[in-house]
């Protein structure tokens, strides 16, 4: 780039070009939505199906979440090494999902030791909704905003239904909040 002499219009051009260059791309996040979307969908439907059998430990399917945790950890470490730039959106998204994960872990611990599983699911769905809604707002990506809003409606309904129905509601939540927006991310 030449130095010194350039016009005010060129100044604007440079500023606009560079700001556009540093614009956040959300394609990288598609992986996480699809990974967790599929895992939770399969686990919740399998749990529901196993409730209708004589199998004594239907909740065992939730061990699938270990795959999600390992996959997320591996992928984020790899991405961290690869990324040459860290935007404020990156920072916000990482911390948002840390906050949501903390909420999920606390809710699960409370369910296991105090409140019981039936009390936990509406809160889990509510937390999914918060993460999805805010991700959608910060990326200006409507399917996530809609998915998050749907999760909140489902969370409210989940307080009034039986545990097996909560499992179906959870499956529907991840379909609306993770999987459908996840598959739409690439096209946007």
């Amino acid at each position, binding site marked *: *780039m030449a130095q010194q002499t350039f016009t005010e219009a060129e100044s*604007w051009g440079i500023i606009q070009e*560079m700001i556009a260059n540093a614009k956040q791309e959300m394609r990288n996040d598609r992986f996480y939505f699809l990974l967790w979307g599929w895992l939770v969908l399969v686990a919740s439907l399998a749990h529901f199906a196993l409730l209708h059998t004589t199998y004594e430990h239907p909740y065992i399917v939730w061990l699938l979440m270990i795959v999600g945790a390992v996959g997320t950890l591996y992928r984020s470490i790899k991405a961290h090494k690869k990324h040459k*730039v860290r935007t404020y959106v990156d920072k916000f998204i990482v911390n948002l999902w840390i906050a949501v994960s903390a909420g999920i872990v606390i809710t699960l611990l409370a369910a296991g030791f105090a409140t019981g599983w039936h009390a936990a699911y509406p809160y889990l769905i509510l937390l999914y909704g918060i993460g999805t809604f805010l991700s959608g707002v910060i990326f200006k990506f409507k399917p996530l905003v809609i998915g998050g809003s749907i999760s909140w409606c489902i969370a409210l309904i989940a307080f009034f239904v039986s545990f097996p129905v909560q499992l179906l509601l959870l499956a529907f939540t991840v379909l609306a909040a993770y999987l459908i927006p996840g598959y739409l991310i690439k096209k946007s």
Partner: protein
Amino acid sequence: MSDFKNLNPLLHSQLRLAVISLLVGVENAEFTYIKEKTGATAGNLSVQINKLKEADYIKVEKSFKDNYPLTKCSITQKGVKAFEEYVRALRSYIDQNPKND
């Protein structure tokens, strides 16, 4: 025209303005990223980054990644302020000279 001449000379340089505009929207960026986005040569970019660093407009951190030197740049509060003032001065110049494209 005088307003235009009063633009901060440190920022009124194509490459330095590009670097600051790039950094203003991010938390930090690696040297190679800035080089890629501005299309500048490594030598020229180093010189301009040093000038911005000496003015305390940016912070430069040097470390190692996989045994290779890694340079990370981030904008300082002083840099953000200087950039805002530059944009304000530029806008007032354009407002005063609407036909001067």
